């Protein structure tokens, strides 16, 4: 596999977005967006639906024209470049497979419109079919492929034309959980081999943290914070980022992570009274679900097994919680709730059965 991809290294370019605004009538889809995507890196645009992440991606591709501001690819202003000469690889959530063409012809499309010679097209397409692990399926039609296979075909099609950047719009959004996880690991490995500057849009924080080197958190058309997964988790710029990246409790007007939530048997400075609702032991770690007194807001804490044993909590008992002394906290102004309320159910994050910490 490695020898195949040595020929596939493309001339990659960094991306720069400078002061981009995009209005649709009265709606401000993007506000003063500045972004630098380093050459050869993998960046995630993360945010709830309607946050402008897809619009930003489409603006970089040239599918939308910014109202003001500039998009540079490889240092070159793209304002005068139409989509078809921008040389971006674009992958759609719903694959956008050419249904009347075989897998081979789908992947060959960009090469054929560039008037490549037949034998060169064949060599290149065969190489890509192997790269995306669709070997032997070249004569199939998209309707005969699974969702994951279709998306890999779409990726091969985008990579065929040696794009200077690869842009993916919720590439795994239409796939079921298991396939989604496999495919993102696979994409990460592919990126390590092909090294093309890649931006993907997602509303799934785990997906972004898992494979992106740089994460851009967006909300209401603005960039809230740009940084690595660790930056966002340990040093969130504001309450929105804190709430969107990782789990949070709202505790006495503060946002605090469940693993930074301390449970005490007796009242102490800064504690909030709670009633223990349920204690869940999950092997090494455990989860304590509580309701605040008297307003019955749900709060939960993540503890180690020994902490759980020391505390010896029973459901129905009263306890007192507060952020740990070294905890990351942000003031809770309710802005987070507002941002989530408008979301579609598909993007709401469930509390994971086993709360795992992104490392």
């Amino acid at each position, binding site marked *: 596999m490695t020898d195949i991809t040595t020929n596939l290294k493309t001339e990659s370019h960094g991306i720069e977005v400078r002061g981009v605004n995009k209005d649709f009538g009265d709606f401000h889809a993007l506000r003063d967006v500045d972004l630098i995507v380093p050459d050869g890196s993998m960046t995630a645009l993360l945010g709830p639906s309607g946050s402008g992440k897809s619009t930003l991606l489409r603006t970089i*591709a040239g*599918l939308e024209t910014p109202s003001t501001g500039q998009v540079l690819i490889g240092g070159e202003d793209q304002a005068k470049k139409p*989509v*078809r*000469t*921008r*040389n*971006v*690889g*674009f992958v*759609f959530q*719903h694959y*956008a*497979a*050419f*249904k*009347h063409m075989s897998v081979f012809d789908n992947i060959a*499309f*960009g090469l054929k*419109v*560039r008037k490549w010679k037949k034998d060169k097209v064949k060599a290149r397409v065969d190489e890509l079919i192997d790269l995306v692990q669709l070997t032997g399926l070249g004569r199939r039609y998209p309707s005969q492929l699974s969702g994951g296979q279709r998306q890999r075909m*779409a990726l091969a*099609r*985008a990579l*065929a*034309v040696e794009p200077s950047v690869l842009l993916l719009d919720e590439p795994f959004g239409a796939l079921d959980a298991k396939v989604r996880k496999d495919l993102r690991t696979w994409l990460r490995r592919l990126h390590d081999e092909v090294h093309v500057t890649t931006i993907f849009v997602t509303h799934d924080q785990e997906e972004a943290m898992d494979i992106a080197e740089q994460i851009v958190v967006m909300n209401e058309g603005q960039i809230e914070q740009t940084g690595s997964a660790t930056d966002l988790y340990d040093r969130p710029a504001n309450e929105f980022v804190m709430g969107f990246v990782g789990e949070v409790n709202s505790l006495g007007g503060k946002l605090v992570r469940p693993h930074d939530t301390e449970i005490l048997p007796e009242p102490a400075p800064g504690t909030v009274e709670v009633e223990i609702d349920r204690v869940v032991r999950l092997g090494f770690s455990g989860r304590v679900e509580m309701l605040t007194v008297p307003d019955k807001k749900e709060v939960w804490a993540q503890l180690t097994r020994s902490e759980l044993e020391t505390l010896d909590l029973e459901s129905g008992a009263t306890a007192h919680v507060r952020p740990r002394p070294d905890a990351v906290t942000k003031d809770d102004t309710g802005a987070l709730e507002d941002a989530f309320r408008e979301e579609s159910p598909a993007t709401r994050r469930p509390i994971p059965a086993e709360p795992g910490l992104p490392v």
Partner: protein
Amino acid sequence: MSGERGLTRYGLRFVALFYLAALLLLPIGVALVKTFDDGIGEVIDQITEPDAIHALKMSLLTVIIAVPLNTIFGIAAAHVIVRSDMRFKWLIGAVIDMPFAVSPVVIGLSLILVYGTGGWFGADLAAQGIQVIFSTPGIVIAVIFVSLPFVAREVIPVMQEIGTDQETAAETLGASAWQTFYKITLPAIRWGVTYGIVLTTARALGEFGAVTVVSGNISGETQTLPLYVSKQFETFNSVGAYSASLVLAILALGTLLFMNLLRRRED
């Protein structure tokens, strides 16, 4: 419960089949039988009459001109209505439907107002030596008019259904607007176009009202097949009328069959 359901089901089937049989199959069947009353030789004699052959040629000529023009126009109009962000595109949609709404006779009369000797362009065209009304151009224009909506109406929903993702993908891969249309959009809408062509052809072959008005109905000169059938019937040549009807029916069925074969071969 199941008895009641069965009753409903058989009741519906009966209504559908009875309706088809009484209103479509019976009359067409009777006509078919009636055609061969005097034997097949008579039928062949009737359809090889010079006036009959002329009418057939006239009908085929109008189809050959009207169908390709309306196909190209229909696809273009559908593209504008579905894909463009033009402000008054709803108006185009409304205008396209006009031939559905207006009686063909009225269409014929309005064409006379425009192209007739006393009409807007009639005198100017006559000065150039071009006669539209009571001549072939008038018939062709009338047929184009009445068969105009079909391709657009069939293609519009298909184009809406396929969405823009495939076209956008083609664009990002470097395809020009024409390449995108030719290699992506057209193959995706091909069955809508096909069905539109079948309907357009059927309408063009069968059109009577508008053509009667603009053609003058001159035997051997400006008669299409439906006009010929009507004339034979009026002059009590029922075998002639039925024989020519048979030719019309065979042409229409032939078009349908041809399109079905195309489709089957592809699947």
